[in-house]
């Protein structure tokens, strides 16, 4: 195993240990359980006109929960050690810093995307089981499959912005605030495009691109941090 891969693997395991010890690992259950559950309750008690609309509703609930999870876990993965000065210890270990952080981010961001995916599948299944589409039902405001994929772009965006903010602020709390603000701005712009009928796949793609740039910048800067 090369040094980079070994560092990636060690730090991915390290992140799992940290999630377990801090009990933050339970946050990863929220999009899987609370997303479909909330969506199912809405399906049963609201007059949802079609399974497509039920899916859109459920996906928005699940996406909101997954967004909170990715914000929290990413902010802590980047900012906690910098705030506590744990990096005085980890930077002096024989491992490339970029691979070390990439391993940790891989777990929190990859984990959140994965649990969002599971939650989205649960939402779709429940919507089709619980809601019957009437012949007069209007079409949903968004194509559910497009929304499901678009949310991935939003989650990557939030993760990337939060990770970059963690490097700048060297604090998990401030990174979290920056991520929430970015999410509010993204939701506002998305809503505006939706109302104006200009919302296309370009928007989530642009969000994902910004998020990836944020992650890349974060990793490069992490490798350059001087203490």
């Amino acid at each position: 195993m090369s040094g980079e891969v070994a560092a990636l693997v060690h730090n991915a395991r390290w992140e799992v240990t940290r999630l377990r010890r801090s009990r933050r690992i339970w946050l990863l259950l929220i999009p899987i359980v609370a997303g479909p559950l909330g969506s199912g309750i809405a399906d049963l008690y609201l007059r949802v006109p079609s399974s497509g609309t039920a899916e859109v509703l459920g996906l928005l609930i699940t996406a909101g929960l997954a967004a909170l999870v990715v914000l929290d876990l990413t902010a802590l993965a980047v900012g906690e050690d910098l705030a506590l000065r744990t990096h005085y210890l980890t930077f002096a270990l024989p491992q490339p810093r970029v691979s070390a952080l990439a391993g940790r981010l891989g777990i929190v961001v990859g984990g959140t995307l994965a649990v969002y995916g599971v939650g989205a599948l649960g939402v779709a299944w429940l919507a089709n089981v619980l809601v019957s589409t009437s012949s007069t039902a209007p079409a949903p405001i968004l194509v559910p499959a497009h929304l499901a994929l678009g949310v991935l772009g939003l989650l990557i965006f939030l993760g990337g912005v939060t990770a970059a903010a963690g490097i700048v602020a060297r604090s998990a709390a401030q990174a979290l605030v920056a991520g929430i603000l970015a999410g509010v701005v993204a939701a506002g712009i998305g809503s505006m495009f939706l109302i104006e009928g200009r919302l296309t796949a370009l928007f989530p793609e642009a969000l994902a691109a910004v998020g990836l740039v944020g992650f890349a910048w974060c990793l490069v800067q992490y490798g350059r941090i001087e203490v």
Partner: protein
Amino acid sequence: MSPDVLTVDAVWKRYGDHDALRDVRFSLRSGEAVGYLGPNGAGKTTTLKLLAGLSRPTRGAVRVQGVDPCRDRARALRRVGALVETPGVPPYLTGADLLEYVAGVKGVPAAERRVAARRGAEAMNVAEHLGRPFGSLSTGLARRMLLGAALVGDPEVLLLDEPTLGLDPAARHDLRDVLRTLSRGGLTLLLSTHLIEDVQEVCGRVLFLRNGVLVGDEPVNLDPDSRTGGPRRAVRLRFGSDVPAESVTRAVGPEFGVTYDGPRQATVRFSGGDAEQAALLAGVIRAGLPLVSASTPEPDLARRYLERVGREDAP
């Protein structure tokens, strides 16, 4: 001749408009234990940060086992244990979590990590606390756990920054014992400290740093006789009237090293304890020398520290 394990070559480090280090040059050969003494802000921690790959020099070069630690961290730091300043550890992590992680990163095979972590903790006498979260450890225990982490993976080089800070006297004593033992086993040690006793008891060579400039690089013990024996004790004798040269030497015998500090004062150095000191004083009195007092002189290293570094922030 042993190769240089640590090299600091004409290093400058600038923070803003302040030069923290100015043209610092020294090297450590394999197996050397070197103390790094200087007042607050002299640049000791900055030097250790450079050697541990936490920071880059503004000018000059540092090498650890022949490799720049910022360029090839994995190769340079593979057999290095370092504790620079006081890192914080998330309160929910246990000592075992941290030490096993360090063992993994240092290349200890998965099956041996638990044992390696335990060995590191045992060296610092904290093995029974391995399962406790850092948040529940006292400052001293947490510090010892961090020192244990630096010892994981049997390092060949140890970089320690104020390692006895926050330790109780017993733990300080234990740490010095551990460092002496490791040093005798061939470990290369750079010990940055405020405390002269740390250097006196552990190191064979000392570097003095003042305002970012290296102002001294010399053996800890300048008494050539002491290189072979165990710890040396010194007694300063004061006389009521002038005593002839060599009279003290004749009175105490050749096994005692006598330095005449003036016609009424001499310092006697010897290997041994209270019994030898009693024999020394009895010899002086039997010889009829006009002894009026016997005292322990200011430690030689402390005197040299003051000469090289000055009174500011003297330890």
